Every structure is written in structure tokens, then in C-alpha cells.
């Protein structure tokens, strides 16, 4: 739980100081003398989708933070029934796939910024396909585990393994939905690159974020 509290505290700190403190010292009961002052103030010009995505990432961080807290507390509270997990070696390969996938998205994003449509196509396709490969690899790891007789109910560490990889996979699947929509839009004749830029941007941020989550989860699972 301390992890989650720390996360919330951090977030509260960031929100209060970074975003609000300088504005919350205003004295709203004093109306400014001229309308020019009014012009300058108002909502920021960031695209709402970006703010929405970052808010969503905070929610997902809270979710995974709590899962990891639960993992540690379950380990701590275990009465001799915690047996460490032999993580399937396949996971190393999967991790490499996900890193490459993230790299592909980053490439696509850079291409979109520079206006190179061909590279954007390649990067986006590579990022998505590698992410699918990662998911297939995760499924394969599940199959390997269950083939050697480890099911969810076998031991708490294994239950957490299935649970954490499963939840991470679901989040990636959600990302792939948006990726799919972007690819379909890209395939449309006559689409302007500029219209795709925001979608590619958001996908890339989400991809990097899920890579980070995966690296943390993998470390946690390795240290069981």
C-alpha cells in the first residue's frame, strides 16, 4: 500500500504545484481592470485528447501500483505458501519484442513530425505487428506454464503471474484497437499526414508507457 500512497502523494504534489499553485494565488474577487487581462487567461491550448490520455495513464498507474502493492503484501502475509516462480525464459524474448515495438512507434512519430509518409507507414506497421507478436509470445508463455502443470490455482506467485501479464496484455490490446483505427485511417486515400499526427503521437506515448509498465512488472515477477 505504501507504494500506492507514495504514487498518490506524488501525483497530488505534481498537480498542486505544477499545475495549480501559481494560479491558485489569484484573487478572483478583484476583477481585472481591462479586458486584455481576461484574454490572456483561460484553458490551455493542449489538445484535449492529450490531456485525456495523460489522465488515463495516471489511472492505469494507480491500477498497476495497487496490483504490485497487493503482490508484495500477499508475499509478506504468506504463511509459508509462497513459492518463487520460475519465470519462462520466453519472457526475455517478449520483452525484446516490446522494446522494438516501442522503437517502431517512436520512429513513426518522428517520421510524422518530419512529414515522411512512407517512413510513418513502416514505423506504425512495425510497431503494431511487433506488439501483436509480444501478445502472441505472452500467450505462448501461458501455454508453456499450463503445459508444465502450473495453473492459476497452483500457487499465489503463479496466480499473480497470470493476473499481471493478463491485465498488461488487455491494456496493450486496448492500445492496438486505437492503432488499428489509425492504420485504417492511414490506408484511406487522400488522408493528410497532419491529421494522423495526433493519433500517432498518442499511440506512441501509450506504447512507451506500457513498455515501462511491463519492465516494472517483469522486474517484480523476477524478484518473486
Amino acid at each position: 500500500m505504501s507504494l500506492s500512497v507514495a504514487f498518490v502523494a506524488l501525483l497530488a504534489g505534481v498537480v498542486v504545484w505544477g499545475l495549480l499553485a501559481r494560479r491558485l494565488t489569484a484573487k478572483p474577487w478583484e476583477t481585472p481592470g481591462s479586458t486584455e487581462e481576461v484574454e490572456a487567461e483561460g484553458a490551455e491550448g493542449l489538445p484535449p485528447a492529450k490531456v485525456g490520455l495523460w489522465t488515463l495513464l495516471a489511472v492505469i498507474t494507480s491500477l498497476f501500483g495497487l496490483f504490485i502493492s497487493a503482490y508484495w503484501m500477499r508475499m509478506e502475509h504468506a504463511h509459508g505458501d509462497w513459492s518463487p516462480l520460475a519465470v519462462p525464459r520466453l519472457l526475455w524474448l517478449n520483452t525484446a519484442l516490446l522494446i522494438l515495438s516501442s522503437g517502431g512507434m517512436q520512429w513513426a512519430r518522428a517520421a510524422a513530425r518530419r512529414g515522411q509518409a512512407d517512413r510513418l507507414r513502416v514505423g506504425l506497421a512495425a510497431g503494431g505487428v511487433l506488439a501483436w507478436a509480444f501478445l502472441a509470445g505472452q500467450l505462448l508463455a501461458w501455454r508453456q506454464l499450463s503445459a508444465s502443470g502450473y495453473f492459476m490455482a497452483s500457487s499465489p506467485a503463479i496466480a499473480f503471474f497470470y493476473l499481471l501479464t493478463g491485465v498488461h496484455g488487455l491494456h496493450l490490446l486496448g492500445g492496438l484497437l486505437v492503432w488499428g483505427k489509425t492504420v485504417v485511417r492511414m490506408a484511406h486515400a487522400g488522408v493528410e499526414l497532419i491529421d494522423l499526427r495526433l493519433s500517432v503521437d498518442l499511440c506512441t506515448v501509450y506504447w512507451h508507457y506500457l513498455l515501462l509498465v511491463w519492465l516494472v512488472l517483469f522486474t517484480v515477477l523476477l524478484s518473486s
Partner: protein
Amino acid sequence: MAFVAIADRDHALHDPQTFITKYIWSQDHKVIAIQYAITAIAIGLVALGMSVLMRLQLGFPHFFSIIVPNNYYQFITMHGMIMVIYLLTALFLGGFGNYLIPLMCGARDMVFPYMNMISYWVYLVAVLVLVAAFFVPGGPTGAGWTLYPPQAVLPGTPGASWGIVLMLLSLAIFIVAFTMGGLNYVTTVLQARCRGMTLLRMPLSVWGIFMATVLGLLAFPALLVSAVMMTLDSVVGTSFFLPAVVSMGQPPTHSGGSPLLFQHLFWFFGHPEVYIVALPAFGIVSDLLSTHARRHIFGYRMMVWAILAIGCLSFVVWAHHMYVSGMNPYFGFFFATTTLIIAVPTAIKVYNWVLTLWRGDIHLTVPMLFAIGFIFTFVNGGLTGLFLGNVTVDVPLSATYFVVAHFHMVMGVSPILVVFGAIYHWYPKITGRMLNDTLGRIHFWLTFVGTYAIYLPMHYLGIMGVPRRYYAFSGTNFIPPSAEWANTAITISALFVAAVQMVFLFNLIWSLKNGKPAGSNPWRATTLEWQTPDTPPKHGNWGAKLPVVYRWAYDYSVPGAEEDFIPQNQPLEAGMAAGRAHGIKP
């Protein structure tokens, strides 16, 4: 680049064409708000019905043989869960949040209208799954609204096979719905305010709803985590929460799980949930008091900071629900301290409400009656909270009716009074007609006095040691007969209060057609939602041009001004300049 509000930028609003897209499959935040509100009130009535059945059992234990102990526990569970989550959370955030945020911030709609629509329909699915639990074998779960394992999934607890799974599923679906709505509320507040609407010019209603949404977004994942893990425990046979239990003579099917882990996760959600319900109520009541007392809110900036402080502190007090759980006793000291600290910003808010009334021009309208009723009730409930926040006092009182009285006062009756006040206040904007005033006054006084008749005696029962959660008290020597009489009296009051709510429902429906036409600003209020070109506001809210805000939301009774209120969008030249210039000290 010159600043252009998002809603002013060039993009098509989804103008509804047919009946279906206009009223059912609608992306308009106002329609979605009404859908949320109607669904929440409908399911809330089910929960009200269950509380009546519980009270009948407690007040007249031998009369109602159809209510068996299993039913009683199912009623407790569903009553609590529905009231806290499916009624109050959904109504405050999905209902009032949806309606008020875009209107009060001067936006045309939520920033993601499609997701907003989906949010409602997913919420409806969550409610339907919840209701489905009544029709499966074994009925809904009777584990108590906290759903503590191991009893929640062990045979012997009603609904341990089907009911609990549907409950957890419904909660998970609700959380998905809430997250979609919540992303909308937060992003709309941050990104879609109209020109001139700085953060500190937002009405406190928006602040309260905004902070409650942030709390919800960060706290609901804890409930999701515990729901997912408990579902796996119950369906797949994992042992996250379930220890080895020999149940009904069967060998244990689980081993090593930690029930305490569930309690930590549950209350990490559960305590912020209290403030998810309370903060919107705090915000809304501030606006009601200011408008109907014709006076600016006292200490506006302090109110905003208090909302933020309460929001942050609410994440570090959860274990005060667990003093009797067997956790490390040293935790109790820490959590008692944080719990008492959170009383500071809360008390600041109460002082500011009272000081807003001080030398105000108090109009005892129906919304105002409910707002003042809220202050009384919240102070009462809050003071007993100080008792229960201390470990040594909580331990003997924890399993008694004192706790029932405390939380019903502080997070049952108080927010509900605000809900009523808010409905009387904004109904004219939503429908274009006033609610009937006489019926409203009858509704307020009978509800207000009635709830005190219900919950004040419960404090005495609790101090007497009458345990909560019991189906019947016969054969318990330590409970005197007078407690039984008190229970009968409480039941009669409860039946009475429940019946009075029918007056309110009647008023809601009757006034739709027969209410006095309201005009655009019946309360002569300053905030933007009362300045729309149409009442009720049309799709897009503002006609051709977005409003521009020139002042804060509380310019009431400004000396020298023509009227006793100056709307937020009134340019400076036209109205008198507000505030310090005229010697008002905020």
C-alpha cells in the same frame, strides 16, 4: 497564437436529428446527465425499499415472517452498495457533473461526447447486472457492502455462489463506466473552459465535482483490483484473499490468502469514496448558500484549498475503518492522527458556510432550507466522526449502532439533503419550470425532522451496546426492552420518511407539466448556467457565441451595483466593478 477556446474551434457538433439520437442514444451532456440521474434515482428507490424492509424486521421482529435472516443480510448489502455507489456516486458525478461542468465552465459540451454517451450505457449495464443478482439462484450477495472475504465467498453466506460474482462483475463494469465519464469531467474542466474562466473563477460546485472525480479516478482502481482478485478466488480457486478455512466440515480448498489484504485494498478505495460523495456536496452547497443568501461565499480561495487538502488527505486515512481488523496496532496511531487532521480543512469549510450566512440576505427558499439542513446534519455527523476516529473510542463502538448513526448522518443524510437542494435549485434550468414550493417545504421539513428521529436515537442504542448487523435481538440479555421500543419508534419514523419521498417524486413529475414557468434565471444567480440564451439550454448550450467571463462567480450584493447580482459574463463597463474597489473584504 491567439487564444481560441476549444469549443470555438472549427469542428462539427453532432447535431441530433431523430428522437433516438436526441433523447436515447444522445451525446449531449445534458441528456446524458438526465439519463444518469433517472437511472440512479430508480435504483436508489430499490435501495430505499430494502431499507424499509430491514426496518420492518428490526421494529416489528415477529410480524414479518417472510423476511428471513438471509434476506435481511442481502438487504443490508444491496442497500449499502446501491446507495453509496450506484446512487450517490452516479448521481453527483454522472448526473450533476455532466449537467453542470460544461454549463458552468462555459463549454458547449464535454470534450469527448461519444465516450460520455458510452459511459452512461456501460453504467446502465452495471446496474442491470446488479439487478440480475436478485433473480439468480441464491439471490444477491449478503456479505455486507464491504464484501469482506473469506465469508463473502464461503457457503453459508447468502449469494456466495452467484450473487457475489455478479456483484463484483457489476462493480468492475461500473468502474469502467466511471473512468470514461471521469476522464471527460477532468479534461473538460482543464481544457474546455470559456475565455476568462480561470481556475479560480470556477464556481465551487465545479471544484467539488472536479476533485471528487480525480479521487474517483485514482481510488476506484483499488476496488477494481480487489474485485478482480476476489472473483478469481471465487471462480478459479486462487488464494489471494482466502485463507485455509474448514467450512461446513469440508476440507479447505484455499490456503494462505490474506483477508487483511482485501480490507486494505477495499478501504483504500472506500475512504476516498466517502469524499467522492462529500466533495460534490460541499461544492454544490457552497453555491446554494451563496446564491440564496445573496452574499459572496466567505473565503473562496480557502474553500478551494480545503477541497484540495481534503482530497489529498483522504488517501491516507483508510485504515481508520480497520481498527478492529487485527492489523498492526501501531498503524492505528498513524491513522487516528491523519483522520483528525482531515477535520481541519473540513471545519474550515463549515466555518465558511456559516460565515457566508452571516449578515447575508437570507432567502428561505426550498434549496436554501436543504442547504442549511445540510450544515446542521453534517456538523452532527462530523462530530461523531471525531469519536470514531480515535482508536480507543472506536474499538468498543465499532460494531454498534453508533457507527450506523454516524455514517448515515455524515454520508447518507447530508449528501442526500444536498441532492434535494440541488434538484430544487436546478430543476428550473433543466425543465424550464419551477418545482411546487409548498410540496417542497413539506418535503424538506418532514424529511429533515424525520431523519433526526431515525438517527439520533441510534446513537443512544450504540452507546448502550446494541450491535449492528443483527437480524433480531430476542434472547440477548444485555439489550434492555427500551432498546426494542426505540427500534420500533425508529422504524415508524423510517416508514414515514420513506413515504415523504413519494411527495418529492410526485412533485418532480407533476411540475414537469404544471410547474410555474421559471424564466431563464429564477434565483437571480451569477453563474454561467443561468445565462444561457435558452431555458432549458439547447444542444450546444450557448447559441452562436460562447460566453466570455469577466468576474468570479460570487458577485452578489455588490455596493453600488444596479442589481444584487452581477452575472459572470457581464462585461466590466456595463456592471459596476466588484470587490476591493468598493471596500468589500472577502
